[in-house]
């Protein structure tokens, strides 16, 4: 499969005064994510499972460290029996995360950022 997502690939480090114009560069025809390293077709189904697994881990991290965001999100949903249940459980979950500590990471990080932002000349 021809793959030119990466319109070109620089073969060595170039500083900007030596950087050629895009239109003058040859388009790289075989690019890394069309095939696996040995030139064999990729195991697309297996790689999709890998990606889905990584996304689930990312969701899990958000549930733990961004429980406040989950609570906000559930409260913005249109009201019905299901979302009421979600709101109730997200409140309980956020309370638990606050007690255990992960929910306090975000305010601490924001606090540091705000102090940096407040620095003046």
């Amino acid at each position: 499969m021809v793959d030119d997502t990466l319109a070109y690939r620089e073969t060595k480090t170039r500083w900007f005064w030596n950087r050629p114009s895009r239109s003058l560069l040859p388009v790289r025809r075989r690019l890394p994510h069309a095939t696996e390293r040995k030139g064999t077709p990729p195991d697309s189904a297996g790689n999709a499972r890998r990606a889905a697994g990584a996304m689930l881990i990312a969701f899990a991290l958000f549930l733990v460290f961004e429980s406040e965001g989950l609570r906000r999100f559930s409260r913005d949903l249109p009201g019905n029996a299901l979302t009421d249940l979600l709101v109730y459980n997200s409140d309980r979950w956020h309370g638990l995360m606050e007690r255990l500590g992960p929910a306090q990471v975000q305010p601490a990080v924001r606090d540091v950022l705000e102090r940096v932002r407040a620095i003046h000349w």
Partner: protein
Amino acid sequence: MLFPTPEFAIFFFAIFVAAWAVRTHAEPRKLLLLAGSYFFYGFWDWRFLALLAGSSALNYMAGLGISGTRNESLRRRIMIAAVALNLGVLGIFKYYNFFMDSLTDLTLALGVHRDMPFLEIILPIGISFFTFQGISYVVDVYRGHIKAVRSPLDLFLYISFFSQLVAGPIVRASHFLPQLSKEPLLSRTAVVFGFLLILNGMFKKVVLAHYIATGLVDPVFADPTQATSVDLIGAHYAYAVQVYCDFSAYSDIAIGTAALLGFRFRKNFDRPLGATSLAQLWQRWHISLSTWLRDYLYRTLRGDKRDAGPRMYRNIFITMLLGGLWHGANWTFVIWGAIHGVGLSVERLIKTSWYTFRQGRRLSTAGAAAIGDGYPEQPAANRIAAIAGWLITFHLFTLAAIFFRSPDLDTALDYFRSMFAFQGGADLLTPFLLALTAGSVAVQFLPGNKIERFADKARDWPVAVLGLMLGGGLLLIEMIGPEGVAPFIYFQF
């Protein structure tokens, strides 16, 4: 549905899992992606789904009509009618009130007062992008660059594919449609590449563009007469960075999500703020739009013959002027386009004259030919020329961006007057905002393709590590970013 929202994360995960589950069944996969794309678009305003479907149907039928006859005159008439209808719809939604407004000003200037029929029109999100894709398809079929699509499903998906539907990149049919007829592939590198592009885009949009906009650019542009010169100078640089971060962020996320679904899109921004000439800048800034303007506007103006005289400069100017007007129905965009049109023409004229002068004196052109591997490195004089070229290009771009950002001409002129008054210190321009702005410009000078190279190195990382990279990165962006997300600037175009 905005990219940096939980709604999109859930939507994308569902589409991703379902699309790969049916990957060996081409038609159900296309149907799924089409339904997902219409859901994505309808989530914003379902009333415009008919417009999207109508635009797709028009271009589908025009393609069939062009390919169904050998009568050149009829083919040409169908193509012109389809392009005119596409532009007509775009014109009504985007420019109707602008022209009515301008007509009112004109009649008042002539001493005649007439009430103009203004309309309350909501601009459908992404209309420019799907219109441009439709035009490129019809013109490419007419020019014989591609064959007309027989399957309506293919064309409807091409026009509405959710990754690039709302703010580009403007994908060409010749690039997208062949990918639909093949089984999608997903390598390990593509997985990491997609994640990294999403992270990169989210950081640029949620952190860089946001803080620069809310901390400096928005307050300064709200009333330039109240800002100090230092803040105004800082804000005009910062705005160029904000626009870059905002525009390129959307493209990064679009290309990244498409890569995860097995589609390959071309790069849309390639470190444009490090360009050493205006021509180079436009080869690196919103590449899909600038190549669209080149292929369907500039080449149409140029016709079959290649010319290098005043006609060429006129065509460059008209292309950039219309490119400016495309960004919005406002004279500030027209002036912005005119500045770039004049700049590109003057640059071309200088380069041509310089080349002719050197050829005439038979001087060595080895340095100027250092364009690829194996060529000699450029001499020191050319490095100085490159630095000077960057300074001129960068400042022309940032100064022109004042017109781009200003809501009207008066605000832009106030901005210039206050900026060059050289009064007052830095009130809003804090070290934090200066670091964000300068850092964003500095990374433009690094050698390219870092993301691709890193993706290649990280391809064999375990799933847990990939998950931590994706989740940890997004979490950090969420933590240091603001609450809520502003829409992407390109949505208004």
